[in-house]
């Protein structure tokens, strides 16, 4: 790891002011630090945002759950309010990584990184989330741009994520046996008007599966997607799973999610 400057920002304004083209925000550091240690990333400045009070905490209103960007996974999974409002979100957080990761990793860090196999991006898509930054509000559907790519501009800091409370929802993950990231994770959420079927792990970026959403919006039953033959041409292939297997898993996990709703 190369030398770098460490800053601890006291508020978003200071954090944003410190940001430059050779800086990174540091929350849990679950990706940033290993990348630096492996020499895959180098930064001149690391701007620690963990100590910004405003960025941590969970608020629940009648319609939404808002989680501060620096809130740790363990805080989400342990929150009684989240468990009551959106139980699937709580269990998603409980299934991220291992206890060490859950005690350091943050929700903001996860979605800003937008790992194609991360769990939280699927929750954002399925639960029609709004990403609150220090500059604007971004709809989840427009936030996740591609592999490790988001709509965030340099120096733009996620402050909170606001999830819409669905009627029913469930997240079902087929984990990579080694890393326990999602080989495929499917987040099904039934809202008043329609059903979202957010898929992570299968392609280069999280997406809402239109075909299954449509079928489930018509009839919210796993039978309506049973045997569905998804196009695997854009799906990932790696040593842990072929595209063909992933395509099958997307349907299987979606069915499981619907049945669990």
């Amino acid at each position, binding site marked *: 790891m190369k030398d770098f400057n460490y800053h601890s920002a006291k508020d978003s304004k200071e954090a944003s002011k410190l940001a430059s083209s050779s800086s990174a925000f540091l929350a849990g550091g679950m990706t940033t630090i290993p990348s630096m240690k492996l020499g895959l990333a180098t930064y001149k400045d690391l701007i620690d945002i963990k100590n910004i009070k405003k960025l941590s905490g969970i608020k629940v209103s009648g319609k939404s759950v808002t989680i501060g960007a620096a809130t740790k996974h363990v805080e989400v999974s342990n929150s009684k309010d989240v468990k009551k409002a959106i139980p699937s979100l709580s269990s998603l957080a409980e299934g991220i990584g291992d206890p060490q990761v859950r005690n350091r990793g943050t929700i903001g860090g996860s979605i800003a990184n937008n790992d194609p196999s991360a769990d939280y991006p699927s929750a954002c898509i399925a639960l029609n989330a709004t990403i609150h930054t220090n500059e604007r509000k971004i709809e989840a559907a427009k936030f996740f741009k591609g592999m490790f790519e988001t709509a965030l501009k340099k120096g733009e800091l996620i402050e909170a994520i606001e999830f819409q409370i669905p009627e029913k929802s469930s997240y079902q993950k087929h984990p990579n046996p*080694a890393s326990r990231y999602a080989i495929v994770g499917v987040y099904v959420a039934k809202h008043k008007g329609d059903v979202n079927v957010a898929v992570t792990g299968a392609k280069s970026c999280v997406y809402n599966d239109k075909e299954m959403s449509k079928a489930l919006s018509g009839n919210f039953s796993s039978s309506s997607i049973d045997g569905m033959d998804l196009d695997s041409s854009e799906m990932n292939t790696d040593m842990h*799973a072929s595209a063909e297997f992933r395509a099958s898993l997307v349907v299987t996990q979606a069915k499981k999610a619907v049945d669990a709703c």
Partner: protein
Amino acid sequence: MASLVGSRVERKEDKRFLTGKGRYTADINLVNQTYAIFVRSPHARASIKKLNIDKALKSSGVVSILTGKEIADEKIGGLIAGWAIRSEDGTEMKCPGNPPLAKDNVNFVGDPVAVVIAESLAEAKEAAEKVEVDYKVLKAVTSTADAMNGDTIHEGIDKNLCFDWLLGDRQKVKDAFDKADKVISIDIINNRLIPNAMEPRACVADYNAASEEITLYTTSQNPHLSRLIMSAFGNVAPEHKLRVVAPDVGGGFGSKINVYNEDIVCSWAAKKINRAIKWVAERSESFLTDIHGRDHVTHAELAVTKDGKFLGFKNETIANLGAYARVFGTVTPTYLFGPCATGVYEIPAAYTNVKAVYTNTAPVDAYRGAGRPEATYTIERLVEKASMELGIDKTELRIKNFPTAFPFKQTLVHTVDSGDYVAGMEKAKQMADYKGFEARRKESEGKGKLRGIGVTSYFEACGIAPSAAVMSLGCGVGLWESAEVRFNPTGQVTVYTGSHSHGQSHQTTFAQIAADELGVPIENIDVVHGDTDKGTFGMGTYGSRSLAVGGIAIVNACKKIVEKGKRVTAKMLEANPEDVEFKDGEFIVSKSNKKKTIGEVAFACYLPGVRDEMKSPLPEGDEPGLKETSFYDPSNFSFPAGTHIAEVEIDPETGHVKLEKYTACDDFGRIINPMVVEGQVHGGLAQGIGQALYENAEYDETGQLMTGSYMDYTMPRADNFPEFNIGYTCTHATTNPLGVKGCGEAGAIAAPPTVMNAVIDALGGQEVTMPATAEKVWKACKNLKKSNVKAA
């Protein structure tokens, strides 16, 4: 006094480990030490055109940079294979040179070419990046099955073939197969594994210019053996000027038997720069450069009669040695494999043929079980298939071919002294509720799941090994073990053992043995190991040998103490030595009330006189002091055995295999500490089940390790396992005074075929290779569906 052997004595080691006071190699920091970073080949096979260290030398904090050239110039020797194997045609095996730093050619990703020594770790790393190596990249050979058809890796080693070895009689086997009603055949792969000790390898080398002695602290399972190799073959220093210390070591599983490049280079370099050097592997270096395990491709056949008697066995195996042949690299796929490949069965004719090949991958060597897991996987997968094809119950078929009497003369090499395989099978069946399986299978079917049951009956040859026998077969050293038992004048005891504990609990179990033998409270006994300056010599710990060989040396040394104690007591109490009995720490003159405690005797041995009298308690011929040494050479291997039964449930939609039940019923002979044995069994099972369902080392065709981190190499975790159901039968080993056999490797030996037999049973007999990953199983489930549709 109650016997401690057999009881769950709490581990003496636990206090320091659980309170973070263990002292591992990386915890050792010496005054004025420097830090080493190794520059490693990023290519699997290349020649080195040019190596330029000029820029790196100018980097801040650099103390020295050494390359393969200096190593070669100073004739610092390479790494060696410790066992010479002869091919079927009588030619000796072919081994390439393996310099500690490569000079001309690199042969696997991670092969070191230079060492950078600097004032700090960060500076060493930075300078290492500035070492310029110009490689001519060559086509790598990575596939085990195709290695003989690849480019020649090492000059003069045709077909990349180290040896083509045969054990057994081909003609006898042919005759047996001619008489068979049926031949069962199988093609299997024993997947490559990475040992993954919790503590990465590390070393700290120090040079004392005054005594001209090098001290090497290193993560070793056998410090004396390391010293011998480094001295005799490495030319690092003569043995009396080289001290090797292996302090607390956090797991080895065979991966820390070897002397590694870094041990030799750091020891040699410390003397050169006259400063201490510290090197600690990063986890990615462990993945790349620790020895790997297994990696066999096997075709095997079993000739049977229609009622299920085994007539003959053939085993044709290609074993991958990796880039170089290392210490146990050549014996693991031969004498540790072939003799065990006929399993626990009476098979009149058998042979095992092994072609050992070089590839551009990390060296493959002994990993927990070493050869015996591969042997057991071969025969037990074959027997399971035979049971399916013959329509004979898998347990009945096994029992039908078990030996009926002991000693059991095996087809190929071993004579198994004791055992009761039928009792083990019956108990395992009962523990696993074998009878109730069909009901559980139906229940799973009701939930849309597939359920399978798998059985393995295994034996293994451990407690290695009788020196004359192994040396006749090519071993470079004798595999005896030494112990020294030393009384202090005030009655406490220090036991020096040549065995090494890196998780095996010797400080507890060996103390239990000595406490019983000497009648001294266990808290007054210390067990010391892991330092060539303490204890006479040692061959180290591997092959489940510590108790069956090292433990017996302790017993024998204790017996010598007792014998001397009897003589001294006799003199002191004016009795005949033959009339002195020893019991529970007291020497008693029979038919009298005269006695001395062993503490009194020890005191008298060290202070042999009394005030106002010219009188010695020592009989003529006995010297003062109370210390005895034993070198114990076993008369035979020891042969643990048992039956394991696994049950899995498969979700055909996702291919997920859930291990529902695992039953292990083992015969380890006499058990010293049941709690320690349970730990060993659990650990072995975790690694064995890991091989069957999770772990796999994978190289791509260019020789890059694809599974070089825990993101891709699946280490099993606690939630992958059910509660293990563990039980024992017990027949004492007849070849050693404790009746012990060994337990460290059994789980890793028996579990892979047990789990795979269950998976394949659930899949209607379809073969899947290890590890049975979700995708492989999912595909098999799809095939099953198709064939069911056809059948309907």
